[in-house]
C-alpha cells in the first residue's frame, strides 16, 4: 500500500465522525522505483492532506518532506522528487491502519490492507 492510498482512506465504522487520517503502523516496508510524472503530482497535490502524508512518511523513516507545503513549491524539481518518493515509491507490506477515534486496527498483510468491517461496525 502506498501513501497515496493511505492519504485517501478514512475509517468507515458506524458512528465515527472523524476517521481521518488513519494512523499508520508499519512493520515492514519497501521502496519501489516509479517514474516521476510532474503533471500527475501537480494534479493530485490539491487533494492531498499534507499533514497526514508528512506523518505517514515519518513513520516510514522519510523525513525529507517540508512541514508545510503549498502549490508554489511544485515548480521546484527537488520538492517534486521528495513528494513523488513519499507518495508513490514507499510501499507498506506489513503493518496496520488505526482508526483515530475508536482505535480499531485494520491489518495490512502482503501490502493489502484489510478494511472489512465486522457485523456490528456497519
Amino acid at each position, binding site marked *: 500500500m502506498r501513501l497515496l492510498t493511505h492519504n485517501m482512506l478514512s475509517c468507515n465504522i458506524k458512528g465515527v465522525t472523524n476517521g481521518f487520517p488513519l494512523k499508520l503502523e508499519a512493520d515492514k516496508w519497501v521502496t519501489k522505483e516509479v517514474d516521476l510524472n510532474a*503533471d500527475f503530482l501537480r494534479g493530485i497535490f490539491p487533494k492531498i492532506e499534507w499533514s497526514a502524508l508528512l506523518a505517514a512518511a515519518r513513520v516510514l523513516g522519510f523525513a525529507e518532506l517540508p512541514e508545510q507545503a503549498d502549490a508554489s513549491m511544485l515548480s521546484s524539481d527537488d520538492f517534486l522528487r521528495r513528494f513523488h518518493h513519499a507518495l508513490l515509491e514507499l510501499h507498506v507490506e506489513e503493518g496496520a491502519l488505526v482508526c483515530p477515534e475508536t482505535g480499531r486496527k485494520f491489518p495490512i498483510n502482503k501490502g493489502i490492507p484489510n478494511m472489512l468491517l465486522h457485523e456490528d461496525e*456497519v
Partner: protein
Amino acid sequence: MPRPELQAPPEIFYNDSEARKYTTSSRIIEIQARISERALELLNLPNDGVPKLLLDIGCGSGLSGETLSENGHHWIGYDISQSMLDIAVEREVEGDVLLGDMGQGLGLRPGVVDGAISISAVQWLCYADKSSHEPRMRLKAFFGSLYRCLARGARAVLQLYAENMNQSEMIMTYAMRAGFSGGVVVDWPHSSKARKEYLVLTCGPASLQTALPKGKGEDGEMCSDEDDSDDDENQTVGVYERNRPRKKLKVNKKGKSKGKQWVLKKKEQMRRKGNDVPPDSKYTARKRKAYF
C-alpha cells in the same frame, strides 16, 4: 451451471482455485480487457495526458486494473476475495488493492477520485449472503460512498450482469437516490452472448457533459461471433405479446355470416324433427360480446 451469484458469496466463490482458473483463462482475460477498455472509454476522461486517480471496484486479480495502468492512470482497487487479491499482488499490479466489501461503503475522503470503473461486480450486491445483509442497505451504502468520494463531474462506469429487470431497476434506483445522473449504455443489445450493459453515472446534475454515447451494435453493426462469453446465464427475458387470435365469425359460401335468421330456421327444423329445442325469445341468436 447456475450463475456464480447463486452458488456462493463472492469471497467464497472466488477461492484459490477459482481465482487461479479465472486469471489464467485466456478467454476471460481477453473479455475482461475488452470490457475494461470500453469502460475506460465511457469514463470520458479529459484527453490531456495527465494520469488520473481512479477506482476499480471489484478489481479481483487485477485484470481490469491493468487496462487502467496501461493507459497511464493510478488506481485503487477493492475486492472482497482474498484469493483474488493474492493473485493481483503476485502479478505485481501497479495499483494498490484493498480487501473490502463495497456494500459496507468505500471509506474514502470526499471528492478525491477522478473516476471509477467496475467490471462484472456490482450485481453481487443484490444477493443477500448473510442474514444481516440487506441488499437495499448495501446498495445505498455503496452508491452513497461512491458519490461522495468522486470529484464533481467525475463519472463511474459500472459494467454488470443483472439477473433480471428487477435487479437492473433496483441498482439504478439507488444510484439515482445517491445523487448520480446518467443511464445505461448497452453494447450489442441484440446478441444474447455479446450483450453488455454499462451503467454510466455522473457525479452532479444532468448536463451536456453527461449525455450518453450510443451503445455498440445499435446501427446494425455485426459483432464478432467469436465472443462466446459466459452469457449463457445472462439471457435477456423475452416479452411476448398476449395476442391470441380473435374468434372469427363463421361465414357461409355466399359470404354472409350465420345470423339470427339462420339460427331460427335451424331451430324450427329441429323442432319438426322432434328434438327438444328451447323456445325462441328475444335473446335467441343475439350478438354476443367479442371474445378477448
